[in-house]
């Protein structure tokens, strides 16, 4: 019983982490139609930057926010200088982002070597709570809380503010939105930067239990892809639901059927692609 509850908390916290990673991926893919295959690189680079700051004795939250800020700059440069020139050319975007992810992976290997780094859990969130005769790590619970708070914030931003409506107008009909005076290009850059920052934030948040190692990017990107395919591209609620489903399947699958862990992960995605290609909560394209 205790094992199952702990597994459930671990699943939910992985789900929270996956949401932070895939929310940006979903917005960039669903709204801007850019298949950003360097999203895992944002996660890993953020985690490495955070780990370096932590090694220098900086506060955990400062490290997480600084890594996110760095990724706003890097993401913004990639979008403005490179992706912008390839608007509408999905194959070229795939090649560019995939190529950049290789470059970033090699740069990380040069700078941080191949040895894994495992930052400590932030002191103020160490330990656990004891309820119902069980022990739950506070840090894991905090990640769930943060993910839900960010999900709410993003939902309010996209669905309930004028800025969010302008982004959606740009997605509906970008040329007409520009004719109405909406600065679509700036808004899309902002969306890309927010996505990159969230991925980096997730990278730092996840580093105490995932650790940071070469190949972390390639481990996380498929998870983000499954989440977005499962939940529906462009849907924040879909990303949230998909993240928690994948978090549960990943942990319970590995605990119960370790040999089939990947089958259990990818099978729902295949089923969704067959039965409901737009994803569980995706909009049908009109």
């Amino acid at each position, binding site marked *: 019983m205790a094992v199952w509850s702990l597994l459930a908390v671990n699943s939910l916290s992985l789900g929270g982490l996956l949401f932070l990673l895939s929310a940006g991926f979903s917005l960039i893919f669903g709204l801007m139609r850019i298949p950003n295959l360097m999203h895992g690189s944002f996660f890993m680079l953020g985690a490495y930057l955070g780990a370096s700051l932590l090694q220098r004795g900086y506060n955990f939250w400062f490290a997480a926010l600084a890594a996110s800020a760095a990724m706003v700059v890097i993401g913004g440069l990639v979008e403005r200088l490179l992706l912008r020139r390839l608007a509408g050319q999905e194959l070229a975007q795939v090649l560019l982002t995939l190529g950049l992810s290789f470059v970033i992976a090699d740069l990380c290997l040069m700078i941080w070597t191949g040895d894994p780094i495992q930052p400590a859990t932030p002191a103020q969130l160490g330990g656990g709570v004891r309820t119902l005769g069980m022990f739950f790590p506070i840090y894991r619970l905090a990640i769930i809380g943060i993910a839900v708070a960010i999900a709410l914030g993003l939902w309010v931003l996209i669905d309930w503010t*004028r800025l969010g*409506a*302008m982004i*959606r*107008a740009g*997605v*509906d*009909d970008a*040329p*007409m*939105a*520009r*004719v*109405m*005076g*909406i*600065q679509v290009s700036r808004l899309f850059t902002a969306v890309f930067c927010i996505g990159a920052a969230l991925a980096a934030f997730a990278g730092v948040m996840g580093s105490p239990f995932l650790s940071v190692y070469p190949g972390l990017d390639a481990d996380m990107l498929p998870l983000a892809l499954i989440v977005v395919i499962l939940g529906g591209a462009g849907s924040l609620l879909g990303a949230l639901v998909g993240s928690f489903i994948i978090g549960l399947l990943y942990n319970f699958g590995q605990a119960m059927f370790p040999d089939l862990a990947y089958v259990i992960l990818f099978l729902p995605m295949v089923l969704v692609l067959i039965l409901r290609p737009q994803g569980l909560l995706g*909009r049908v394209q*009109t």
Partner: protein
Amino acid sequence: MARSALSLSNVHAYYGDSHVLHGVSLNLGEGRLLGLLGRNGAGKSTCMNVTVGLVQMRGGAIEVFGDSIGKCQPEVMSSRGIALVPQGRRIFRSLTVRENLAVAARKPARDAKAPWNVERVFDMFPRLRERKNQNAGSLSGGEQQMLAIGRAMMTNPRVLLMDEPSEGLAPQIVAEVGRIIARLKGEGLSIILVEQNIKLTLELADDVAIINTGEVVFAGTPAALQADESIIAQHLGVF
């Protein structure tokens, strides 16, 4: 002669290699309504799309209230006070009615007498107020046309370009759109009305121009056009 609100001089435009505007010159006087007639594919919509920056012109000049515009970018033309009611309405379908209006909102010029806001649009189109929280994609064609007009007005424009606002609408709705256009003109707005509906255009317009295969073939008053039926037959008649 009224001050010029918008003028196109010798404008050339291409779609790929196909030359669609062969040196078009048009002049819209301030506070006037210029009706732009012509058959399908004559280049009327292209004139509008060039003016708002959706199609880049290759050669020619555009002036807005005497200021020459270098490169027409949609955001720049909007900030210069040019608004478009596009052909086919092209409202933001997944946004609510209210959101469609809100995203286009722009502060009016300081000298504006009656600035446009969401409430004023709703006063003009009470049907839109009833449906303000509905997705715009679920509106009827007539309601979508009203939303497209309201959305354009939210930018508090000085020049309004209307591209076939009567297209595909029932006759009583066309009459309503006509009354609205007359009302907007009465408020001093300078308007270009692109139409296939000759009768509606001649009722509303102060000046008329006809475009045929990318060239202006007639420019004058509605009376002059009506006096010369051969022009209508030659350039607007159906074969």
